[in-house]
């Protein structure tokens, strides 16, 4: 049997050096681009042209940058939804489902309240109803998590499928409140005009983008500066210490999850007051809720970085989408590049958390023996 004389050893770092916090994500993205370049070369496409086009269509043209910011509006919300839960080591995988409920809650308010209130009041109500519906959708997972310790990963994920069925139900069932009554085609019923915002000029960017920025800032402030945020930090660092300090972990768990659900619900309601104006069954194929988990992971769940990672990821998606339009690059290349960047960014985590060295096998055995 052939023996490999070297072995890779992972040693957990006590403290991550500051320079690595910046260096690792940067190197990860570069490594991903390098990997992508090899792939592009191997399949006969020019890496320089491809990257130039992606960058131009994602960030450097009027349509590119406005489409990127428009997409990031939703992804920032679902991103902080995932990252906020993670502050307490809770995994809300069901942002997608909470977003569906946000569509339903938002559309309900937009239709039921009619065209009586000014937009300035109506839109916040619609957004609020979407957020409440998202929070309601995560209530049961939050409750059983806090009382019985049931895995929120499974329960929130499974509820997403139920949410998708609910969307289909409200659109495909005749006489549904959310369905346009004038046609036998399954069309959503449009919300009142006062519940619809106009996009900026000829772009597809809606004022909800600034709401997303404000919400992101507010959540950052809550976690860093408030007593509630302090409790979250103590619980996530040491549940036992939190218990001795008299912090009610159960109640905090429920609140954190409800807020997380509300943020994804808000994302859904933003689609209602923004580009869609009604429940469109195709929204359940877009995966904006799942993408939020990716955005949070790219920001390493750092709430201060979600805006950056949300815009970066949106730009990649917009630029990747347009690769097909402006070049002959197939869709799979764009998707592969997005995947590679994510994979390398997450893989880079290992370098941040662990001190990695390659040692001779004898040394490794000796080390093990010493432990």
């Amino acid at each position: 049997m052939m023996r490999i004389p070297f072995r890779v050893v992972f040693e957990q770092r006590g403290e991550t050096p500051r320079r690595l916090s910046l260096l690792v994500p940067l190197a990860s993205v570069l490594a991903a681009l390098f990997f992508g370049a090899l792939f592009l070369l191997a399949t006969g496409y020019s890496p320089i042209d491809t990257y130039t086009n992606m960058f131009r269509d994602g960030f450097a043209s009027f349509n590119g940058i406005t489409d990127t910011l428009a997409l990031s509006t939703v992804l920032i919300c679902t991103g902080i939804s995932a990252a906020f839960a993670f502050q307490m080591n809770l995994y809300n995988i069901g942002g997608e489902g909470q977003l569906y409920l946000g569509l339903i809650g938002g559309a309900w308010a937009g239709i039921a309240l009619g065209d009586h209130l000014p937009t300035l009041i109506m839109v916040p109500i619609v957004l609020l109803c979407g957020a409440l519906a998202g929070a309601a959708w995560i209530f049961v997972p939050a409750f059983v998590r806090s009382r019985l310790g049931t895995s929120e990963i499974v329960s929130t994920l499974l509820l997403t499928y139920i949410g998708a069925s609910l969307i289909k139900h409200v659109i495909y069932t005749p006489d549904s409140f959310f369905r346009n009554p004038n046609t036998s085609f399954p069309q959503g019923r449009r919300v009142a005009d006062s519940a619809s915002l106009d996009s900026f000029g000829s772009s597809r960017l809606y004022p909800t983008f600034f709401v997303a920025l404000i919400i992101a800032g507010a959540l950052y402030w809550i976690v860093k500066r408030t007593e509630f945020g302090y409790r979250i930090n103590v619980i996530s660092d040491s549940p036992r210490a939190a218990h001795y300090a008299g912090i009610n972990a159960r109640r905090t768990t429920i609140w954190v999850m409800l807020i997380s659900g509300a943020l994804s619900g808000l994302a859904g309601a933003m689609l209602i007051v923004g580009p869609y104006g009604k429940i469109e069954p195709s929204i359940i194929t877009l995966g904006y809720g799942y993408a939020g988990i990716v955005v949070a992971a790219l920001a390493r769940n750092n709430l201060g970085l979600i805006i950056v990672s949300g815009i970066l990821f949106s730009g990649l998606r917009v630029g990747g989408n347009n690769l097909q339009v402006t070049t002959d690059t197939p869709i799979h290349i764009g998707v592969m590049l997005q995947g590679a960047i994510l994979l390398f960014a997450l893989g880079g985590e290992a370098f941040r958390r662990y001190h990695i060295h390659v040692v001779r096998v004898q040394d490794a055995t000796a080390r093990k023996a010493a432990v």
Partner: protein
Amino acid sequence: MRKNHIKGFALATAAVFGLLACGGSDAATDTTVAETMETEAGDDYSMLKVAVVYIGVPDDKGWTYQHEQGILELEAELGIEVKRVENVPEGDEAEAIMEGLAAEGYNLIFATSFGYGTPMARVAAKHADGCFQWATGAKFLLTSEMGGEYATFGDIPANLGTYFGAAEEARYLSGIAAGAASPTGKLGYVAAFPIPEVIRGINAFTLGAQSVNPDATVQVSWTKTWFGPDTEKESAESLLAAGADVLAMHQDTTATGLAADAVGAKWVGYNSDVVEAAPDAWLTAPTWNWAPYYIQTALAVAGGTCPSDEYYGSMADGMVTLGSFGTSVDEDTQGLIADTAAAIIDGSFAPFQGPVSDQDGNEVVAADTRPELLDLLGMSYFVKGVIGSPKG
């Protein structure tokens, strides 16, 4: 007979367009049609930039594959290259992509899914010089009364057209094959969504089956998905368990056929002629031929006009066809189907020829009449003999 007709049509089209592509250098053989079209379009299609937006990928062996065949023919006939954009999700990202295409100078854009309507209309409004074609669409759905964004029908951009076809004609014919192949008269139908398009197909299939077996029934199982191999398989198996010996489908995968094949039942496919998926089970399939429409629309745009009607194709113009027959469709049945197809094509027969009754026995189409196109497009009832609810 049906096949000959279709083939004849295709040959005629090919001849006309072939001449066009050659630039009419051989004046002696030019027909009047070719001459008129030539003066409209010339043989220079360099101003024509065509793009197609696909909901899936061209090798799905289903809906998108069938459109791809039409696009390939368009490219061959006109000697042009068509831009394909694949896997485009419906919604505002589709709008960004179509906007990008228009900005790149594409002046004829086809979009092959119902959900592209709103984004396509928005882009059409911004690019009046382009021509936009929405497959399976219906422009009236864009009016505010129907939940759309335009106050009146007249406000909808004039450079937006829709195209679809009377699949019910081929559905009816496939029903004949199914009715004749079923000893028990119990048929099953794996159906995607309770929308008029699907309901219309189920009804036409049922009427076709009843034309050879008046007692035939069709049990419907809704999957609530277009593309879901697992769900489709489960639905198919539940219908087989309930005693169906022939399954039809309105889905994008061959899962129904594989399930039928596994228990020795028969299968009517949809979209594509994929007999090889389950040769023993295969009867036939209603399929699409988008090539004639793609070619005629491209020629119209090259000639300076953008078709903006709601185009409803049929077997007569070749948009709707029937696939090849499996071994268990006998000669007599093939002959009957060919005769019926000829009657449909020459207009002497229609699938919903009255009298037609709904599930409760109420007459919905009076004797010797046919439903109006809008009634067909909005069909929301099941005909007598269908088991299940048209409400899903």
